[in-house]
């Protein structure tokens, strides 16, 4: 009953295409003509629209090269509330392919079909089940309203996409992610009419047949190792083995997809064939998965937080004087140079303890406050930006911080940072100054709530006690999540950091 979509013919001489990106995910509800995927041929990139409404089942993975006519995905008919958001009215959209389940019913075949939470709006990831209008075991007709769902934007009613006997999976009050299972409907036999009563018996043995098996996503021992090393979890790899098990090949393919398509990427694009004759180079490079992750996260933070930035300036003279005075002695004693990072890390750590909300993060409906300060340091590594974490900075001495920075930076340079070393920070410091930045607005390192941006140190004329003096000045920026951090706290935090840096003695005396 699903519609198989094939790679369409895209041009006379084009025999194969590469899947550049899936715009929609497996299991997403897609509407007819909605773009679901971007394809690349050696001549051009084009978008693939869905051929019907329904649930997308991806066959070809990103990076796969497919022949024209090869199956790329299938679309399972599925009813859903429409994707229009923020209309607090009952919404109803009839799926395009509703006749199929009915046909199945007529065919005396017993089938169990799942009802999933439809996509209801762009930024909505989950819904709450407000009310079940039908009970498990009830017979429901096609398009009969079976339950009411609530998102944070709207309430809407869910019509049954199938006729049959209802089995409720998610109960009232529970929160279900988009695409999550709400209920199943046993379709078949004489069940179509709501009057049938003998249906209940058929449900007993049928569910096991179509429900996902317990072993789905279970990796073989070799696959488990490959996945661990690539940092993949079971839900990032689709298992092709019996019952959805993940084979070694599945794991290898999942991780090596970008590399496999490299040859395709290096062929020179022939876009300019009809254009001017002189060489005008451009090239396409596959985004690494790290790059893609960075991209996705940064956009997510911009979309999902109320981020804004506050600025201040720091007179760096006291720190520079201090460094000049004790640089050599510090190095002799501790075996590590005295840089600016220890001052900034320490100052932030103290300020974070003074303003705990800056050190907190949002988890669902709660705010998690940390009584430790684990400071992430943004480091530019060969593969891209990485953020190793200095743990318990509040307990560390300047020398400990400096040597930890050196250790992590070296590991970052050699791509040897472990996942553990990069996860779990409570606040981030990034230094755009090393590249010469005067002022910038950094993006929060989610799920943290704030990030401090350091910048270059420039000698600027400033007024000191009524006279103009030339001082080394650094602008500092604090981007923060206004959802939890009020202006008082963010500005107060940054001012506190400024005070500590301009008078390092305060760090010693903790005043």
């Amino acid at each position, binding site marked *: 009953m699903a519609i198989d979509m094939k790679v369409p013919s895209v041009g006379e001489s084009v025999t194969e295409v590469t899947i550049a990106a899936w715009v929609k995910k497996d299991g997403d509800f897609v509407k007819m003509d909605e773009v679901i995927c971007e394809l690349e041929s050696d001549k051009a990139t084009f978008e693939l629209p869905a051929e019907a409404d329904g649930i997308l089942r991806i066959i070809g993975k990103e990076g796969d090269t497919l022949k024209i006519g090869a199956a790329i995905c299938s679309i399972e008919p599925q009813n859903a509330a429409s994707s229009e958001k923020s209309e607090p009215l009952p919404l109803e959209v009839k799926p395009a392919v509703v006749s199929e389940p009915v046909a199945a019913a007529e065919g005396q075949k017993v089938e169990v079909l799942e009802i999933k939470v439809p996509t209801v709006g762009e930024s909505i990831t989950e819904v709450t089940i407000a009310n079940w209008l039908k009970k498990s075991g009830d017979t429901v007709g096609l398009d009969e309203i079976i339950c009411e769902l609530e998102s944070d934007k709207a309430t809407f009613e869910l019509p049954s996409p199938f006729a049959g006997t209802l089995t409720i999976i998610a109960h009232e009050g529970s929160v279900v992610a988009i695409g999550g299972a709400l209920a199943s409907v046993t379709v078949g036999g004489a069940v179509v009419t709501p009057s049938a009563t003998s249906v209940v018996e058929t449900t007993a043995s049928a569910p096991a047949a179509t429900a996902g098996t*317990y072993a789905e996503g279970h990796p073989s*021992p070799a696959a488990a190792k490959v996945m661990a*090393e690539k940092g993949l979890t079971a839900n990032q790899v689709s298992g092709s083995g019996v019952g959805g098990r993940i084979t070694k090949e599945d794991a290898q393919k999942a991780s090596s997809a970008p590399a496999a398509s490299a040859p395709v990427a290096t062929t020179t694009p022939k876009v300019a064939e009809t254009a001017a004759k002189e060489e005008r180079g451009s090239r396409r490079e596959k985004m690494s998965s790290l790059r893609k992750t960075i991209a996705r996260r940064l956009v997510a933070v911009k979309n999902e937080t109320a981020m804004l930035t506050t600025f201040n300036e720091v007179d760096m003279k006291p720190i520079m004087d201090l460094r000049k005075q004790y640089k050599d002695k510090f190095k002799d004693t501790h075996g590590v140079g005295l840089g600016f990072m220890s001052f900034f890390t320490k100052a932030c750590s103290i300020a974070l303890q003074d303003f705990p909300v800056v050190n907190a993060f949002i988890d669902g409906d709660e705010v998690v406050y940390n009584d430790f300060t684990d400071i992430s340091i943004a480091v530019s590594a060969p593969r891209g930006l990485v953020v190793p974490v200095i743990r318990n900075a509040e307990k560390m001495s300047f020398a400990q911080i400096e040597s930890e920075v050196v250790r992590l930076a070296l590991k970052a340079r050699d791509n040897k940072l472990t996942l553990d070393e990069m996860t779990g920070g409570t606040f981030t410091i990034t230094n755009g100054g090393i590249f010469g930045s005067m002022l910038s607005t950094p993006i929060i390192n989610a799920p943290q709530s704030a990030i401090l941006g350091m910048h270059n140190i420039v000698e600027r004329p400033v007024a000191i006690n009524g006279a103009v003096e030339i001082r080394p000045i650094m602008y500092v920026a604090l981007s923060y999540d206004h959802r939890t951090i009020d202006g008082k706290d963010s500005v107060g935090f940054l001012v506190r950091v400024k005070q500590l840096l301009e008078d390092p003695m305060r760090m010693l005396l903790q005043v």
Partner: protein
Amino acid sequence: MQYDVVVIGSGPGGYVAAIRCSQLGFKTALIEKYNAMGGTCLNVGCIPSKALLDSSEHFYNAVHHFEEHGITTGKVKADLSKMIERKSGVVKKMNDGITYLMKKNKIDVKNGFGSFVDKNTVKIAKEDGSEEQITGKNIIIATGSKPTILPFMNYDKTRIITSTEALKLQELPKHLVVIGAGVIGAELGSVYARLGSKVTFVEFADGMIPTMDKTMGKELQKSIKKLGAEFYFNTKVSLIENLGKEVKITAEDKQGKKVEILGDYCLVSIGRRPYVDNLNLEAVGVTTERGKVLVDEHTLQTNVPNIYAIGDVVRGAMLAHKAEEEGVFVAEIIAGQKPHINYNLIPGVVYTWPEVAAVGKTEEELKAAGIAYKSGSFPFKALGRATASGDVDGLVKVLADKNTDEILGVHIIGARAADMIGEAVTAMEFRASAEDISRISHAHPTYLEAMKEACLAATENRAIHS
């Protein structure tokens, strides 16, 4: 000399770790205090005991079963010293095999007693009194275990012995008293029972091989009883004395009644303890708990990050194949890989005859955990292969999840159980269901058909041949 990895101990954990390290391109040294490679497993454990088990099995068959096969022999005699000699030959062959593997993998073997100087330096005290120090970026402790002996047992290596001495006795005991009816006691006790010794087991728990599924212990006891062995369960030994030509065991039964047993040899097999004596762990601050080296579950690192520990010195079952897995695991961890060991699926094997082998959960564990399960059994006596060879003792028991049919435990007692368990381990690594195995073709006639039948029994109680 500066090495990437220094391994202390050449048992199945240590030498396998060394080979894997070498394969991964590390410059590796292996320290062994004895002149023979292979550790307990190869010298005084798995290999020699299996050599004797097979000899005793041949003898027993010659006396008891040849006739039914139509083979007439004269008076059959067991020459224990010759059996021991053959066993030594087997061990020697395996020793040489490891020495060859070390050469092939360019691993530097250092003979002598290794102990820590600092976290990167190991001192090797050699037989000739000289000392050498080598350094390693990483050090793997693989020093194994020794039999546990309690003071009142008066271990004297002559009449009151452990498994080590039991593998080289000069005479056949008339009456061997075995303290502890666990794996080692059951194996060695059954060797001597088959050679004609009277064997008495004294066990603190309420049955044989008490850590395994209860059905296995019961079935094994039935088989060993046929050899004329006696059993004292729920009995606590309080004193063992060597009276010159006899040994006296004083014990107490569950009711507190005193029990006295006289024999000419007493084998103490109450367990093994991690062996880190004189390793000088204090010098590097590696922490231990009751002798066990404490390690990180995810990396097998000790609290000193460049020092790892594997095998019998760390938590978990004291099994050669578990140590081997950990040896490979640590080598790959050092190389920055992310290997994984599924400790639930390390099979346990008892080399008695019939053999006992198991993997996964026991029925008692499933009950205690409140997991809904179903059970399917199949007896060997209904198998064509078993009947043909006359090895009809035993059964296969499969425990599967009541709802999903996933296999949760497999317990086998019978001929070749140790080889048969492999199928169960493989299936469970892939989380197979009982019905999966039922639907896989099994060659006929083989012992493994019992596995398929037991799975059929577990699936819908539809074994074909019972």
